[in-house]
């Protein structure tokens, strides 16, 4: 099977590419700059319809995970990459006769603020979710699933909080802030949060490619299925990096209000970097976010292979190796 992977430079993207390659699939990477070595590369921007058409030539299956993330940027920018980019890929793939398409989405497309306790995936609601990122991902997911049918199966997978060795998003930021002594527990730190170890997210995406014809048209949340109190997660990540867990505590209301203020200022100044705290992040870290995984596992015929405990050991080894 010849598989096009967009966004292959991300942590999970590189895992997916390797998994596919290891089992004998032909992997083609598509991104703006050059990606990891050892794969055929097609360069371009997803918002460029011509480049996308060229990229899908001769392709059997697509894993689409290229996206603009974060909270910095205008709606036009998010829409261009996430919505129009996905539309381009869907259209080109359909025209090319691609036999399966996995759209990598986010649980945030269906949820806003409320605590999620053993929640279902739910339907993407672009008009209800907050922030450009979630809204654009929600619109993209809807249009991708809209295109799905028996002859062009599309499946949306929503991994929740991916982390692992080499992760410069969740792990990187937490450790960086711990190093600077600026890491605080928001709220009680007891809210249960689902996370996904990176190789589990990758194996779920590969399983999604295999199962897309049987379960097309659906959106599934993917996680390790081992929710943990957020303070325990943070503590274990920080310890894996050889640091001490945070002593500082910030009440949720303060963090949320602070986050909102920061968002406003950031937005006006249009800085390029991500702000230290956003109200979205405060919410994510202070209210429960965990999901019912039964349907995901049934549909994908998949189980996470790496437990959280094993994942934290890997992370510790990686930090130890890196510091040598």
């Amino acid at each position, binding site marked *: 099977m010849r598989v096009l992977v967009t966004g292959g430079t991300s942590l999970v993207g590189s895992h997916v590419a390797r998994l596919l390659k290891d089992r004998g699939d032909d992997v083609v990477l598509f991104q703006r700059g050059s990606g990891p070595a050892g794969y055929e590369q097609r360069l371009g921007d997803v918002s460029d319809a011509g480049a996308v058409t060229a990229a899908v030539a001769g392709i059997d299956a697509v894993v689409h995970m290229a996206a603009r993330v974060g909270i910095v940027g205008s709606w036009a920018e998010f829409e261009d990459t996430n919505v129009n980019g996905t539309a381009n890929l869907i259209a080109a793939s359909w025209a090319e006769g691609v036999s399966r398409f996995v759209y990598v989405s986010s649980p945030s497309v269906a949820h806003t603020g409320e605590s999620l*306790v*053993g929640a279902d995936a739910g339907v993407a609601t672009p008009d209800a979710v907050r922030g450009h990122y979630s809204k654009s991902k929600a619109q993209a997911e809807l249009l991708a699933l809209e295109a799905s049918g028996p002859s062009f199966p599309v499946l949306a997978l929503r991994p929740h909080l991916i982390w692992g060795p080499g992760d410069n998003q969740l792990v990187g930021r937490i450790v960086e802030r711990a190093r600077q002594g600026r890491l605080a527990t928001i709220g009680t730190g007891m809210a249960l949060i689902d996370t996904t170890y990176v190789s589990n997210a990758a194996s779920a995406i590969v399983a999604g490619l295999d199962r897309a014809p049987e379960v097309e048209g659906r959106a599934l949340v993917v996680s390790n299925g081992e929710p943990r109190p957020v303070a325990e997660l943070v503590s274990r990540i920080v310890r894996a990096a050889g640091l001490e867990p945070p002593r500082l505590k910030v009440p949720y209301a303060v963090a949320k209000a602070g986050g909102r203020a920061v968002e406003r200022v950031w937005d006006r100044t249009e800085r390029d970097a991500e702000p230290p705290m956003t109200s979205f992040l405060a919410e994510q870290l202070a209210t429960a976010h965990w999901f019912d995984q039964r349907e995901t596992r049934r549909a994908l015929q998949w189980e996470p292979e790496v437990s959280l405990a094993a994942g934290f050991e890997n992370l510790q080894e990686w930090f130890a190796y890196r510091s040598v």
Partner: protein
Amino acid sequence: MTTGSTSPASLPPQLSGLDPSWSRLVSAVDSEEQSRTWHVLDNGVENPSLTLLCVHGNPTWSYLWRKVLQAAPPGIRVVAVDHLDMGYSDRTGTERRLAQRISDLGAVADALAITGPVVTVAHDWGGPISLGWADLHRDQLAGVVLMNTAVHQPAGSPAPSLIRFARSKAVLSQLCVRTSGFIRGTLRLAKKRLPRPVRAAYRAPYRSAARRRAIGLFVADIPLEETHPSTPALDAVVAAVGEMERTPALLLWGSKDPVFSDLYLRDLIVRLPDAAVHRYDDAGHLVSEDADIVAPLYEWVSHLGTGSLEDPEVPGERPALWAALEARQSSSDAAVVEMVGDQPSRSITFAELAKDVELVGAGLVASGVSKGDRVSLLVPPGIDLTVCLYACWRIGAVAVIADAGLGAKGMTRALKSANPRYLIGVSRAMAAARAMRWPGERISVDAMRSARKRALGVSATLDDVRDRGQGRELPESPASDDIAAVVFTSGATGPAKGVVYRHRQAQAQRDALMNLYGIGSGERLVAAFPPFALYGPAMGITSVVPDMEVTSPGTLQATALAGAVLSVEATMVFASPAALVNVLATREKLAPRMREALLGIRLLMSAGAPVPAALLGAVSGLFPNASLHTPYGMTEVLPVADISLAEVEAVGPGTGVCVGSPVAEAEVAISPLNEDGAATGELTTEPHAVGEICIRAAHAREGYDKLWAVNQAASQPAGWHRSGDVGHFGDAGRLWVEGRLHHIIRTDHGVVTPVGVEHAAETVEGVAKAAVVAVGPVGTQQVVAVLVTDDAPRTATLAGDELADRIRAAVNVPIAAVLTVPSLPVDKRHNSKINRTKIGAWAEEILAGGRVGKL
């Protein structure tokens, strides 16, 4: 208010929960030969096997029955009629009275071609109207369902004050017609605030004074006085109900109803003694809005005509509960001994007890207590309680027994639900009854002056009762099928439930206990576990009540126990684990003479909660000649199984607590759990099948009082009691209990029973006590361990990574979170069972990101 404006019937607009296809307008000729049009809801099922004819009250309309229509099973037609001048039916401009409304209902029912069997379903003043129709259609009548209604003003009670208030001329028009006050007020009688669209729907047909006219007329038509024009019609209804004794009846009742209070429920139960009754503790007047009445309604309907609601006949006459008293009526042996400290303070011989029971029994009859009347006994264990209990049994009164451990609030709830006619208690109980308005005519066990009697609303003292009984004959003895007692559960899992026992079931319990422990007449028992003390006289043995605080067994001193043993040279001791712990802790104070007395104990029973083997082992040092036993059972059936200390030591650890082998008199089986953790499997005795423990025994309860739906669920298959405990049979036929079904954790990997996990967690060093609870939706629940550690924190906190790692390594299930807390809540009565329900709710809240509230 003789004539009013008219307007024709119409179809309702789009309203929340109401399917427009149900609405029909039906015309018929009323009793005055006038053509009228009714609005009805009708699901239109053709050739139905049964029709439910639903009749609303005032000031509602057939919207009240929308859920009954919605949930109708196939083949059942549901028809709900708006009375004329009510809802969306014709505004006739006339004034219609009860008799006319009954014939109106007949007219519209005929026009609707309701043929075949019918169950009437009615609420509020729809009750008398529906019963009037039912009486005229006996050939069709398959049953009656009544909700918060009345047919008769109970003797000696005032009319509902709200009704009297509304009936006063000044108020009537203002409240009912000129404004929508009566409707709004009624909607507020729902316990939970109704959603806005539902409130709007109830008010929709009553938007103007002209459309509300009948609401006032309805109130005015309630015959509160003999001269009222509707009195004959209501009297006819009352007479008809008197002939409906054999008609299947279901009473669904919201207990928080200031209009139709429990008094009216009792009145209906007396008139329909075989009715299935479900009283919702948390529902108000609009019971169908506050509670799910639809499921029990259709469950009940599904049993109609199948005969499966009939009691299976259980033969075999046993001696009466008081037979041993009669047998020993000339014995001067002590029957009951009370202690103060380590000394006897009061005692009564069998001869005296037998005589006093007869005297008090006759006196109670003379005081108005009839067979079947409920008598609540608020007397601590001892001579007075024994006398009153056996006197009640002898005359066929039903003893209501609620343990003081329920607390004032729990007691109030229990007594309101049982609704006894009489309340016999010590003076403290009299004061509490007055302050908390517990139902029942008050009889004081303690002597008191008339001023105090008046102050406490006490009608008589026990001595007054004895005086009244002098020279009077006792009535005929109750039959073995008559009800003997309503005993309240501890309320460890939700509100306490009244458990009903017939005489034959109580007799069987006495016999099962005597057989299990080889108890012979003439033995002497120290009963430090209150419920057991009650059966002493029935067994013909001497009972001693040691000096202890009844509500906190942990106060039993070693000297108090030994003194009690010494006083009668006791052969048996029954105590709770909490009592035994304190006896061990205070054993140093025992004089040699007292220690010696303990050598005479041949049997020590400990019950009420799982007893740790280590505790029993330490206790056996104090009672070297006793065999140590722990019976397993519950308020609903006891004993179920029994295990000795030797056996506990021999079987060793396992999954859950080993409670031994089933007793000879009880059949025990397991209803295996399905994938979702519900106990749906066919009963089995296969070893290692995990499921709900089910029991069938002659000594099992009859049922739950006024909780028909709960009773149905707990009695599947028929004749069995579903205990709510989860367990399995191990090797050699021993039963293992793994916890409450209610506490079963349904993860996405399968079912987890908490007890085994808790035991494993408690093996971790530094962990004193563990509770294992679930958070999240059933089927994908996460397991949470809540610990009390040796260095307990002052507030609840997340356990450190190291402790969490050790806990996860010790148990065999995934644990999402490990929390440490200062202490774990336990239930009041046993003072030893951890309250997992409360801990679970607490964990659910904080693990969702909520505040860390007090546990």
